[in-house]
């Protein structure tokens, strides 16, 4: 399995080297479908490569480093939810097939605020940060009480998407408004306790995936900055010769190594049991630290680039803006640090 992973990562690296920074959605999405990246985390019994969350995360890391605009991350969340649903066969297999062959099932990158009107079985509310919704046929959604997980067709009455411009231009996010969509018409993936476990699993995967994306971004940006310091000369010497700057880079590298190690550790610990509360807690730490580290690397990199970092033509700011957005994705509204502390103190 690890060989497979290595090969996949190498091929991803090659592909991204050819798509430019940021890697455009138009080029990258068809390519990654063709290369079977969506199949990477899908279990073998469903026709996938069985590389699990580790496989997905190594791709997220590469895609993060290339500032990918493609909605691969939410697509893998959507796919995972279908794979682990109780949908009867052959319906489930048919969905997996559809979602692996180019039809986009996306998901919100933060927690949606959706409720089911009791009795009526009608779904209403708002899901923000739904990535590439205009290209998707379906969106993975869950109610605020985690009692229901479903796949919602975008093409139906009462469903509306609105594009929201973000500073980060490497993702295209949408608000999704749902107004009294009949639950009976939707593809319900889980209800009750099963739904609660599925949402925990989904949150776990989402947080780990965002962490992997951030690690990739941070590593690529640090490499860019090191290259700049090595080649840019002032005072008749490379900037890299100044100890003050070397120490800053050494600190960044050390933080990054820590965040990376935590993610690796988390991935190893949870891969078999992504649905339990302990796994989610592990993912919280990985997400928090990776995103904080990415932002730290980005803030420092802008400064270390000097004037050129403030120019639109240089990619430095694209990383910074993605890092700022990443920090606020997932369950950030609730505060990851607070969730981690509460868990420790038993005050959750």
């Amino acid at each position, binding site marked *: 399995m690890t060989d497979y992973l290595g090969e996949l990562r190498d091929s991803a690296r090659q592909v991204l080297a050819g798509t430019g920074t940021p890697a455009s959605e138009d080029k990258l999405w068809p390519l990654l479908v063709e290369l079977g990246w969506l199949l990477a985390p899908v279990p073998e019994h469903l026709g996938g490569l069985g590389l699990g969350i580790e496989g997905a995360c190594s791709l997220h890391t590469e895609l993060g480093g290339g500032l990918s605009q493609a909605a691969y991350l939410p697509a893998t969340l959507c796919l995972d939810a279908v794979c682990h649903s109780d949908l009867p066969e052959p319906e489930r297999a048919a969905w997996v097939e559809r979602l692996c062959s180019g039809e986009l099932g996306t998901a919100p990158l933060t927690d949606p605020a959706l409720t089911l009107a009791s009795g009526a079985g009608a779904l209403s509310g708002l899901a923000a940060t739904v990535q590439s919704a205009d290209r998707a046929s379906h969106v993975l959604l869950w109610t605020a009480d985690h009692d229901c997980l479903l796949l919602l067709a975008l093409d139906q009455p009462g469903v509306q998407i609105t594009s929201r411009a973000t500073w980060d231009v490497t993702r295209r996010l949408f608000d999704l408004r749902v107004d009294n969509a009949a639950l009976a018409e939707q593809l319900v993936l889980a209800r009750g306790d099963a739904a609660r476990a599925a949402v925990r699993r989904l949150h776990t995967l989402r947080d780990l995936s965002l962490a992997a994306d951030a690690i990739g971004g941070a590593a690529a940006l640090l490499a860019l900055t090191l290259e700049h310091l090595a080649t840019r000369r*002032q*005072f008749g*010497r490379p900037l890299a010769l100044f100890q003050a700057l070397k120490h800053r880079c050494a600190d960044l590298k050390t933080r990054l190594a820590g965040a990376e190690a935590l993610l690796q550790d988390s991935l190893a610990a949870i891969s078999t049991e992504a649905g339990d509360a302990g796994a989610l807690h592990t993912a919280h730490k990985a997400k928090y630290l990776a995103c904080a580290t990415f932002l730290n690397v980005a803030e420092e990199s802008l400064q270390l680039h000097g004037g050129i970092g403030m*120019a*639109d*033509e240089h990619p430095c700011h694209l990383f*910074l803006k993605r890092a700022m*957005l990443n920090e606020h994705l997932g369950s*950030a*509204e609730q505060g990851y640090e607070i969730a981690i502390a509460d868990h420790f103190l038993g005050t959750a």
Partner: protein
Amino acid sequence: MDSEENIRSLRMAVRAWLRENVPAGWREAMTGTDQASFVSAQRDWFAKLSEAGYATPHWPEGWPGGGRSLVEQKVIFEEVARADAPRLILFFVALYHAACTLLECGTAEQRERYLPGILAGEIWCQGFSEPNAGSDLASLKTRAERRGDHYVINGQKTWSTMAQYADRCLLLARSDRSGPPQAGLTYLLLDMKSKGVSVRPISQITGDDEFAEIFFDDVEVPVTDRVGEEGNGWAVAQATLASERGLTLVELSQRMRYSLPLLRDLMRARRCEGDSAARRDLGALIARVDATCALADQYLLKRISGTEVAGDASMVKLHYSRTLREFVSLGRRLSGLQGQYDPGFMRGATQETGNWTLDFMNSYNWSIAGGSDEIQRNIIAERLLGMAREPKNWQLESPA
């Protein structure tokens, strides 16, 4: 002059004037606007302010609006900041860099010739940095060759703020290539409408294009427009930079202090006034903001009394820059996901718009431009603290 009575009545007068005159909704008007409306809004505001005598409180006695005591200057800056009046960013270099350089190093004729133009709304830019001469300013290569009663300029400048609007440029160029790099520089006042000048605006990460490259192709500058002696440009440039590092920060630190209510509004809107982590950060920030203001004031007093020492201005700038970064970072963090949505391009945005992600990015102007934080640290360490300097001679060894 600074009796409590006088100061109070000045404050009341300025406040009343601002209430009448600050254009309502000026910030919104700058959202998505074109260059022409930005320029005309800045011009109108400058004309009003200077007519009222509030545009140049930092100028010396004898000049319109000048001759104010430190306390009076502060009152004016405070009230302007408090009213959230537009900042004169288009005239910033003219009012500070150019004026201070002329007042300190120019001849009486040059002052008579150029200061009235500045008061009448001429726009100036600063042409120091080059693609290969940023922190290491003294290595600059743009040439100034003496030919009779003219200098002929060839070369390129970059990152020049507002150069695309500028009437004149503070130009630092090389007149002599022999000897140490600092020794061969000459300081000139260049007419941007001269033949051979071309300007290319640079798009910024904020969507604005406030700075530009300037190209010089056999541009002639009369010798009478030289500030200081030929080859003495480095010392004159230090005067320009000192005004940027020290003097402008009295105004800017007051701006920052009076922008604190933006954080209060944000905390209310986000319902986190009760959040003890947010309150702790806010409290720590307020203390640092007050310290920045106090340090800037003290600097000005030292300047007036002639007790300024090397490194003082650098501390003011570094203190401001770090505190500003904390300020906008707190705002950005507390804004949550909302802060990541792009509300549309705002021309001439400063670092206190309350759009925290934009403010955050603009705060890098203060840690990079005018001598970066790292360069200020070097100056403080080497000149103020007397720590050993980086060796001039070095050898690149491959890493072990």
